[in-house]
C-alpha cells in the first residue's frame, strides 16, 4: 500500500502539498527573473514611448531614427553578414569532420572548438591587437608583400567586426551542428555511397536536411547574439557607422538619456523579433509537448 502511493507521488501526481512543491522550488528563480528581467524589460518599452514630461509620445523613436538610422541598418547588416558567413563555414566544417575519419579531421575538430567559451571581452582585445593598422595581421601581410607598408588594411570597421564575430560564432555553430550530425547513423551514408552518391550530394541531400531544426536553432541564436553584443563593437569599431548597442551606451553615459536609449533598445528587440520568437516557440514546444 505504502510503496504504491509513494511511487505515484514521485511522479508528482499526489495531492495537497505535492502539487505546490514544484512551484515552491521554482519560486526563487522565477521571482528573480520577474523582478530583474521582466520588470526592466517592460520598463524599457514604457520609457521608449514617454517624453520628458512623462506623456505618451513617439519623440524618442523620431530621435532614434533621425540620429541613428544609419546605425540601425549597420547592425542589421553586420548580423546578416556574420550569421550567413559563419553558418556556411560551420556547415562545411561540421560535414567534413563528420564524414572524414582521418587524424587530421580529429585535430581540426579539437582546434575548431578552442574558441567556444572565450568571452567576448577577450576576443575584442585580441582583435584590437591583431587587426590594428600596425597589428600582427598587417605586419605579416606587409612582410609577405601583400599589403603596402604605408597604407595598411583598415579593419576597425564592418570588416574587422564581422571577422571578430566569425571567429567567435563559427565554433559555436560547428559544435551544435556536429552534435546533430553525429546522431545520424552511418548506415545512411553507407547506403548512399553504395548507390554511387557523391560526397557533395550526401551532405546537401541527406545529412543536412536531416538536422534542419538543429541548424535553424544555431542560426537563430547566432543572429540574436550578434545583434545583442556590445563588447566587441564597442572595443574595436572606430567612429561611425557603429552598432546600435554602442549608440545605447553613448546615449546613457554621455547624455543620461534613458528614453532614446530605450527606443534604440526596442529597435534591437524588433531586429531579433521574428528569430527570437521562433526560438522561444520551438524550444518551449519541444520541452512541454515533446515535438
Amino acid at each position, binding site marked *: 500500500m505504502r510503496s504504491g502511493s509513494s*511511487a505515484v507521488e*514521485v511522479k508528482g501526481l499526489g495531492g495537497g502539498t505535492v502539487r505546490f512543491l514544484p512551484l515552491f*522550488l521554482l519560486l526563487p528563480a522565477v521571482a*528573480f527573473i520577474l523582478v530583474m528581467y521582466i520588470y526592466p524589460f517592460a520598463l524599457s518599452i514604457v520609457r521608449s514611448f514617454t517624453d520628458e514630461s512623462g506623456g505618451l509620445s513617439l519623440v524618442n523613436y523620431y530621435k532614434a531614427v533621425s540620429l541613428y538610422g544609419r546605425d540601425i541598418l549597420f547592425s542589421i547588416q553586420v548580423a546578416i553578414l556574420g550569421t550567413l558567413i559563419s553558418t556556411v563555414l560551420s556547415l562545411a566544417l561540421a560535414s567534413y569532420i563528420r564524414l572524414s575519419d582521418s587524424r587530421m579531421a580529429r585535430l581540426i575538430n579539437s582546434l575548431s572548438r578552442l574558441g567556444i567559451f572565450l568571452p567576448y571581452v577577450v*576576443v575584442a582585445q585580441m582583435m*584590437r*591587437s591583431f587587426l590594428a593598422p600596425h597589428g600582427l595581421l598587417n605586419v605579416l601581410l606587409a612582410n609577405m608583400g601583400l599589403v603596402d607598408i604605408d597604407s595598411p588594411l583598415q579593419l576597425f570597421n564592418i570588416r574587422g567586426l564581422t571577422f571578430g564575430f566569425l571567429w567567435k560564432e563559427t565554433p559555436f555553430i560547428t559544435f*551544435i551542428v556536429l552534435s546533430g550530425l553525429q546522431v545520424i547513423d552511418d548506415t545512411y551514408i553507407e547506403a548512399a555511397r553504395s548507390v554511387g552518391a557523391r560526397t557533395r550530394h550526401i551532405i546537401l541531400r541527406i545529412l543536412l536536411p536531416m538536422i534542419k531544426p538543429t541548424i535553424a536553432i544555431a542560426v537563430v541564436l547566432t543572429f540574436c547574439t550578434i545583434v545583442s553584443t556590445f563588447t566587441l563593437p564597442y572595443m574595436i569599431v572606430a567612429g561611425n557607422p557603429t552598432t546600435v548597442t554602442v549608440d545605447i551606451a553613448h546615449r546613457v553615459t554621455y547624455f543620461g538619456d*534613458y528614453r532614446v536609449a530605450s527606443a534604440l533598445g526596442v529597435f*534591437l528587440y524588433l531586429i531579433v523579433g521574428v528569430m527570437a520568437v521562433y526560438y522561444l516557440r520551438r524550444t518551449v514546444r519541444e520541452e512541454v509537448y515533446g515535438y
Partner: protein
Amino acid sequence: MGTKWRRAVLEGALLCLLFFVIFGPISSLVIWSIAIRWYWPHVLPQEIGLAYWKQALGLQRDWAIAAVSIWGAFGTSMLVALVATALVMTMAIPAGYALARYRVPLKALILLLFLMPKAFPQQPIFVNLLPTFTRWGLAGTVQGVILIHILVCLIFGVWITTSAFKAIPQELEEAARSVGATRWRTFWKVLLPLAAPGLLVSTVFVFITSLTEFTGTFFIGLPFVTTLPMLLYSSSGYNMQFASVIAIVLLIPSLLFMVLIQRVFRPEYMGGIAG
C-alpha cells in the same frame, strides 16, 4: 593514389588556414604581453621581457612600466563570481529539479521566462535597471554587480542543472521511495550524487560566465567596481601590453574549461535546446 594525395594536401591546407586564423589573434596577445619595444613593420618585437607580467602580478614596481597590480581587480572579480555562483546554484538546483522531475503548472510560461534573456538583447535591461539601482543605492557597488551577474548567469544555471537531472534515470529514485525513503532523503542520497558531475559543469560554467561578464558590469559597476574585464577595458585604449596580460589571465579559465569538459558538454547547455 592520386586522389588520396590530393585529399591529404587539401586537408593540410585547411588545417594550416584554421591554425592561422585561430592562433593568429591568440599569439598577437601573447607577443604583446611580453613585448617591451615593438616597432612597425617588424614581425617580432625588438625587445622582449616579463616586465609587464611582473608588474601586473605585483612582483615589481617600476615607474617606466605602465601597468598596475591586478590583484585588487582579481579579488573583486573572485568575490563577485563566488557569491554570484553560490546564489545562482542555490536557486538553480531546486528549479532544475522541479523542471526535470515534476509536472509543473504553467510550465510553458516558466520556461519562457528562462529563455527570454537568451533570445532578446540584455543591454536595454541593464540600462533600464540603472536608474532603479541608483535609487536603491546599488549602482556602483559590489552588491549591485553581484545582482547583475546573477541575472546574466541564472538561466545557464537552470538549463544545465535541469538537463543534468534529466540525464539520470528516474527508476533509481522510485526504488528508493518504494523502500520507504523520504522525498528529501531520496534527493539527497540518490539523485544528487548521481547528478554531481553535471552540477559541477553547471557551477563552473556559471563561475566563468560571471568572471568574464562585461556589459552588465559596465553599466552598473563603473566607475567604482573594477573587475578584471573592467580593468582590461580601461587599459585597452592606451596600453597594449598591460591589456594583453589581463586578456591572457581571463582567457586561461575558459580554455581550461573547454579542454576539461569536451566530452561531457552537450549542445542543450548552450541554447536550452532539447536533444
